[in-house]
């Protein structure tokens, strides 16, 4: 179990307890957090679950796998701290993670 805070573009904070093993994307979708579309359902094929992760957390998360950066090329306004939330798996280690949701996904 990990507390994940999703911060919308309007700066609304939603803190959710997400089960280990789910992804940060699934935590958002199952709890109706606005702004994470996840059109492809977690297949790293659409870049519509794009989030920004604050620098300190960004470096603590497991590194991006092949393909995630390719997909992020297509995201809306990607930055150096961009991640696809479907590729971040929830565990006790990421308790307290905060992610910022971009103004739109496409």
């Amino acid at each position, binding site marked *: 179990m990990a507390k994940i805070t999703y911060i919308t573009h309007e700066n609304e904070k939603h803190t959710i307890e997400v089960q280990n093993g789910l992804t940060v994307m699934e935590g958002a979708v199952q709890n109706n957090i606005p702004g994470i579309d996840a*059109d*492809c*359902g977690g297949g790293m094929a*659409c870049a519509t679950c794009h989030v920004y992760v604050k620098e300190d957390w960004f470096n603590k998360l497991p590194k991006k796998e092949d393909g995630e*950066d390719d997909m992020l*090329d*297509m995201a809306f306004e990607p930055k150096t701290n961009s991640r696809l939330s479907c590729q971040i798996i929830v565990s006790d280690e990421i308790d307290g993670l905060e992610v910022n949701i971009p103004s739109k996904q*496409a």
Partner: protein
Amino acid sequence: MNKTDALIIGAGPTGLFTAHQLKLIGLDCEIVDNLDKIGGQCIELYPDKPIYDIPAVPECTGEELTNNLISQLKPFDIKFHLSERVEEVKKEDTSWFVKTSSGNSFLTPNVIIAGGVGSFEPRKFAPKECEKYENKSLFYSVKDKKIFKGKTVSIFGGGDSALDWAIELSKDCKINLIHRRDEFRGAQATVDKMQELVKSGKINLFTKYQMANAQGDQKLESIDIKHDNNEIKNLKSDYVLGFFGLIMQLGPIANWGLNLNKKTIEVDTEKFETNQKGIYAVGDICNYPGKLKLILSGFHEGALAARACFKLARPNEKYRFEFTTTSSNLLKRLGKKE
């Protein structure tokens, strides 16, 4: 006006197999798709990626699956309308009137939406200023490369489309190639070729930059690009090309009076019919308790929706269930028996 027993929206795997099922039970159908090719997400998103969960097919790529489905349709005569998006669906007596972006229209008792996550549209630049120049000096695809001759063209993207056009247009244009990171996802040979042209001064390469702004009164004059470290560069540009792949948009489907749940359409699990009689949704775009977004589920949903179409297309006939192994009717339709 085309009259048909069923109109399928979407030429992905689900749409293709639904067409097979309709033809097999003796109904006509036509297929409309916004893409310029058959195959849907399989062809657009993962043509080379292997799929491992199609029953009885241990491994195949998106492209192989599409080709197999197309060859399964060989016995049948099915009309495809590609590069057309369905814009309008409205009731006309007991039928549905359907109109596409190229002005084609259909009258049919059955509309089957096999639209995946909607239609594919190009992903666009983030800054609002860019809209003003769209289709004039700023494009997301190249229709006529002659207009760029002798001009300065700024190309954005890191995949094969961006690289191929940068290489091609560098022959008689001044090219700026801009990408958000140092790595390119295009084919290695293409990346090497591009790097050569950068060395010989044919292409100006800017990495870790993104579009920040576009300027010019009527015509585009220059663009600002912004580095990861916030530094801004101004590039004189006559034209801008953006290649960020495609995004799926629900588009006009949202206006057809269907019960929607986020980007999916609510259906029953007997006919896969929506809240509108004679409109069905199958594959990734439909939603019901327990829905799995798997290709195999789309096949099942299409098979059942096809049987439901029979009732509305042939109100005076009774549908009889038959097997392809034994039914001479079906074997005739498949061209296996005289």
